[in-house]
């Protein structure tokens, strides 16, 4: 397994989870009730994944790329509908990034990355009721 490529893939997913944590903060602010609770729960899941990824980057002998102060969400989040779309977009992209990490991983680590990719795909459907054929291709 190419160690440099795996570390790059880890950094890519780390950046994606950082973006997801940021995005869900914006998303949650535009939602209410159970949807807001779900957004906060999803944000917590990404935060936990981010911490694990950062630890893996460190264990690989690299320095985790720090989170940015803000991220381009690719569309304005102005109401609940746009908030749901951004949440789905984040999950879609992350599902693809986790799959990329799985490809760069040994069998043991591959399963956890695959499981994370699947979890993102399921969360995406929870926001839009739509499932792309190929996650991360949008």
């Amino acid at each position, binding site marked *: 397994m190419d160690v440099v490529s795996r570390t790059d893939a880890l950094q890519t997913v780390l950046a994606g989870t950082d973006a997801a944590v940021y995005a869900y903060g914006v998303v949650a602010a535009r939602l209410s009730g159970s949807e807001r609770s779900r957004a906060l729960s999803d944000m917590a899941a990404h935060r936990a994944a981010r911490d694990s990824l950062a630890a893996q980057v460190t264990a690989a002998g690299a320095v985790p790329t720090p*989170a940015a102060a*803000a*991220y381009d969400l690719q569309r304005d989040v102005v109401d609940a509908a746009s908030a749901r779309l951004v949440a789905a977009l984040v999950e879609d992209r992350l599902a693809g990034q986790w799959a990329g990490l799985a*490809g760069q991983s040994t069998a043991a680590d591959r399963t956890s990355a695959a499981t994370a990719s*699947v979890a993102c795909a399921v969360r995406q459907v929870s926001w839009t009721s739509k499932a792309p054929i190929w996650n991360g291709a949008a």
Partner: protein
Amino acid sequence: MTAGAGALAACTSSSGGGRSPSPGAPDDPDAALRAEVAAQETALLAQYAAAEGVMPTKLAPRLAELGRRHADYRAAVLPSAASGSGSGSASGSTTRSPSASPTPSAKPAAVLGSLRAAEKQTSEQRVAQAGRAHDPELARVLVLVAAGAAGASEVLARWTS
């Protein structure tokens, strides 16, 4: 608000972390795995094709669209020469297995429930199969198929709730 735009950029390619023979090459260590996945995708296509027959007119096209992805998945794991067009419909280019056909009296809700379970099982199978893949790109594709099948299962759950 522009920092980290790449973090939201699509990840649609892999640099590949290992050295593997080309898919379909005589020494492809994933040949059996590719065939296994393709056979399972063909069976699922047949299950969708059979299900369309018992769906209400309004739902049948949506079901066909959802099932059609499995032709893409099958094509993605096979060497290009063996995968056909890769754009077949859920109704076409499939071989129905005896167990794939619901009885004419089968209720749509029950058929959708069976498809949902099949998609969930497919997702779990692809996760496990990704762990067996030698080719990093095949592993990545299998994980994407797992994600797609999990998503389809969730969509079907919403149709039945």
